[in-house]
């Protein structure tokens, strides 16, 4: 009951005693509930104001995604509302030390957060207990730091903050204690009311949510940046586009820019790709179809990037499409690789066509050689023989000898043609890969050689059951050439010896070999062994056309292998070959 009301009552009462009596009655009957009601009203009023202020703060928190802004606005509001001297946000480090990341401090007090005081506070209690009571959602309010039984070091720390009283509430990010929200009273001691603590707790909870959202957004942006994926939304009613940061970058724009218009977005797209996109968007809006297409984006530096674009319509409850949302992915590297592969394939097909043509020509050529080149030789040979037979009595010995030489030359020419044709056939023939018993093939070849040269005594050693993977026809030609050489070059040996078998090189790779104790060759010319028509011996010394080893090499190459020879003159030669690369 206020004094004005009492003064009015005094005027009404002429008797002093009556007034006193009235006062007592009033005090007993009216005054106490009245005061209580008035007090309650005042309290409620205050709580209402605080709740309103908190609601205001919370709605501002929700409008913002930027943590620094949220902290700045909220600490100021709450500090003013609580009439505290400082409200600060303290963040724990992984080792439970921490620092103030935001504060609002009344003028005249030492700031704890400033660009030049990035101080890490090491509170041993919090560090040892890993957040202490706050981990269990506890709060801590102290009216007088000197009478709360605090440890000296703690008091000293608070003195550094210039604080006389404080209230601390935890900030949780999900299940994890993230930091503390602190209110400090510096000018005087202060008893903290329960609803004031409640207010701080609620704000701390809101901070927790905001921090978690901010963290999620950071991770989303980070993920988008790493994956080169951007997302977007297009509100059809407001015509407003919303882009994620990466979407800006994908389109060659600065993420700090304001949101672009739909037209500005279309301008980024390669003119040739625009119609397809526009059709897709129109269909999405009208029919509600999901679309997916690849587009080219022209950056400001005129470079072209490829994006895979996906869009999906969103329908409201009435079934109308009200917005589109989607994602875009940078596929430039993939596209470039695809284009490179395409180019390569085109070049390859061209080469194949050319090669096929060349092969066909080669085949025609060799067919013609096979038929036409030998025919004149037969005439020369035949008529030389006719001369010898019909006119022998008119030819002297020299003349007869010349004709014999002509005949021999035509025969040799015939052999050369045949060998060249074999070589060319071996290059062109189709191959059928299968297990081939090389030992049996070698045996067959040697039997033929023995039959053709019954007078020769050659000691042959063939390792049993040497199986190779290859084309049996070609492998037979390979062994024929190598064994024929061995046979030929051991002709002058009284004890000729030929061996076929396998061994391993230093890397454990299987090597096939054919070894003889014949004439051998000079290693100086080892690189000339395999050239077509290359001979290391004269025809008088050893017969042959110089095609055999070229043929052998071509067969080995067609099996993905290598062939080489090792020799010392007059101490035999060994030819090694492999059959798979």
């Amino acid at each position: 009951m206020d004094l004005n009301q009492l003064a009015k009552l005094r005027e009404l009462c002429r008797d002093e005693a009556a007034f006193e009596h009235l006062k007592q009655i009033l005090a007993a009957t009216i005054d106490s509930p009245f005061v209580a009601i008035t007090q309650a009203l005042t309290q409620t009023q205050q709580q209402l104001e605080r709740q309103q202020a908190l609601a205001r703060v919370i709605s501002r928190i929700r409008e913002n995604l930027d943590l620094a802004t949220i902290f700045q606005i909220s600490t100021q509001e709450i500090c003013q509302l609580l009439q505290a001297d400082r409200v600060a946000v303290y963040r724990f480090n992984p080792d439970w030390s921490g620092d103030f990341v935001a504060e609002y401090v009344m003028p005249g007090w030492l700031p704890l957060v400033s660009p030049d005081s990035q101080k890490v506070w090491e509170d041993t209690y919090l560090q040892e207990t890993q957040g202490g009571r706050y981990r269990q959602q506890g709060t801590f309010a102290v009216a007088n730091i000197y009478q709360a039984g605090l440890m000296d070091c703690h008091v000293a720390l608070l003195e550094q903050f210039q604080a006389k009283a404080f209230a601390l509430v935890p900030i949780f990010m999900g299940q994890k204690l993230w930091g503390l929200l602190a209110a400090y009273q510096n000018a005087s001691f202060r008893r903290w009311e329960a609803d004031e603590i409640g207010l701080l707790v609620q704000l701390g909870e809101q901070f927790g949510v905001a921090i978690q959202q901010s963290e999620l957004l950071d991770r989303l942006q980070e993920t988008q940046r790493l994956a080169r994926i951007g997302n977007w939304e297009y509100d059809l009613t407001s015509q407003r586009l919303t882009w994620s940061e990466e979407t800006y970058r994908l389109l060659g724009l600065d993420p700090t820019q304001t949101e672009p218009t739909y037209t500005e977005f279309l301008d980024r797209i390669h003119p040739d790709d625009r119609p397809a996109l526009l059709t897709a968007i129109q269909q999405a809006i009208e029919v509600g179809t999901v679309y997916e297409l690849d587009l080219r984006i022209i950056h400001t530096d005129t470079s072209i990037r490829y994006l895979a674009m996906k869009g999906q319509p969103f329908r409201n409850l009435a079934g109308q499409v009200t917005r589109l949302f989607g994602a875009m992915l940078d596929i430039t590297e993939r596209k470039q690789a695809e284009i490179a592969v395409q180019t390569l394939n085109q070049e390859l097909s061209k080469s194949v066509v050319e090669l096929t043509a060349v092969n066909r020509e080669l085949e025609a050529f060799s067919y013609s050689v096979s038929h036409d080149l030998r025919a004149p030789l037969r005439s020369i040979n035949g008529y030389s023989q006719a001369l010898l037979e019909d006119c022998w009595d008119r030819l002297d010995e020299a003349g007869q000898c010349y004709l014999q030489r002509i005949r021999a030359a035509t025969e040799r020419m015939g052999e050369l043609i045949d060998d060249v044709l074999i070589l060319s056939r071996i290059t062109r023939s189709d191959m059928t890969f299968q297990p081939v018993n090389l030992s049996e093939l070698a045996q067959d070849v040697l039997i033929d050689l023995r039959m053709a040269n019954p007078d020769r005594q050659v000691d042959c050693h063939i390792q049993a059951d040497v199986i190779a993977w290859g084309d049996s026809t070609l492998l037979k030609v390979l062994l024929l050439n190598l064994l024929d050489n061995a046979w030929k070059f051991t002709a002058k040996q009284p004890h000729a010896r030929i061996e076929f078998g396998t061994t391993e090189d230093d890397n454990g790779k299987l090597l096939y070999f054919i070894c003889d104790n014949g004439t051998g060759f000079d290693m100086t010319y080892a690189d000339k062994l395999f050239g077509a028509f290359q001979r290391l011996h004269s025809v008088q010394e050893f017969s042959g056309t110089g095609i055999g080893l070229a043929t052998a090499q071509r067969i080995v190459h067609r099996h993905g292998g290598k062939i080489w020879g090792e020799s010392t003159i007059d101490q035999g030669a060994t030819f090694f070959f492999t059959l798979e690369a």
Partner: protein
Amino acid sequence: MQLFMTPRSILLVEDSPDDEDLAIRALRRSGVLNEIIVARDGVEALDYLFGTGQHTGRDTQIQPAVVLLDLKLPRVNGIEVLQRLRTDDRTRFLPVVVLTTSNEQRDLLDSYSNGCNSYVRKPVDFIQFSDAVRQLGMYWLLLNEIPSLGR
């Protein structure tokens, strides 16, 4: 079956005059005295065998004992001749020996798949060639028998 065969002829299909000359020389030297008819390309060979063109009116009941057929011929080549002979009842069983320069796998396959009776490659060496011709003559003129058509 005739008990007394009149000496039957040989049809030599050959476009090279040298080869023709040398082949005849080789046959004669081997003692083959039968008549040798020469056709210088595929058309001439078919005309002779079917009694057409310049051989219109020839009695096609009388056919050579063997045809020595070269493959590379002007106008109609040897394989085509062979195909025609094998699809005609009059010449289905007529012995055809391909006598040619090449030993390309392709030629061998084409010749055998079209029903040649033999494939002989002409060697460069005339002595070897003579020997081959002599053996051919012996075999196809003296040893070989064919069914008589429809009689």
